[in-house]
């Protein structure tokens, strides 16, 4: 199971702050995970995860959509940060 977190505007648009997903063996990158999530959830996820500005972290480190993921990982999708 991977834990997927959604933050800020993405969390609000999806109405979900986190979920747990069992990764099939062929899903081994962020890209493939995003495709899986879109397949499971539909268009809201598509509009959010295909946006060029969306950022991803794997195990709390900034990553890219080509980064690999395995079950047990913690993935987060979020918009550009705006603290301070």
């Amino acid at each position, binding site marked *: 199971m991977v834990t997927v977190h959604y933050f800020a505007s993405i969390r609000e648009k999806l109405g979900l702050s986190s979920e747990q997903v069992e990764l099939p063996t062929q899903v081994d990158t962020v890209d493939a995970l995003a495709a899986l999530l879109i397949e499971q959830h539909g268009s809201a996820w598509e509009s959010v995860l295909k946006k060029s500005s969306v950022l991803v972290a794997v195990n709390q480190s900034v990553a890219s959509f080509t980064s690999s993921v395995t079950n047990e990982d913690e993935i987060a999708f979020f918009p550009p*940060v705006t603290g301070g």
Partner: protein
Amino acid sequence: MRSLKISIQQQDFSIDDECAAMRAGHKDIGALATFTGLVRELDDMGTASSARQSVSSLYLEHYPGMTEKNLQEIAEEADQRWPLLDVVIIHRIGELKVSEQIVFVGVSSMHREAAFAACAFIMDYLKTKAAFWKKSNSGEGKENDGHWVEAKKSDTKATEKWAETKQKR
């Protein structure tokens, strides 16, 4: 860096308390630079006459775990660049009204150049590298009444400038 305090908290902070804690027991501090970020009534695009751009509160969200790690890395990067003594980074989360304090960065050093530069560096990096998100509420301060603030190009540029001017000590 002799000490590093990172705190992400809902409650307010006292600049004096933080400065006093940094100074306590130390005789080597020559310079103490601080930055406090506050909730402004008007956002960057606005004038007072434009109701849409008047801010009544901000809502600050973070990524527990990752945000602390981001701030730790930023402080360590600053410490590699300048000879620092004590560093404090406090960032509030949740609902913050106009005039309330959002963020505090305090840096002590023997000399003012290091304290000033590191304080500005930490703020620039915090703005672009630390997992915080800010929603601007214009109405009665309800959480869902506002808009998520967009990342600013000027912040990205400020961060890039530091990357270019990197000078290891």
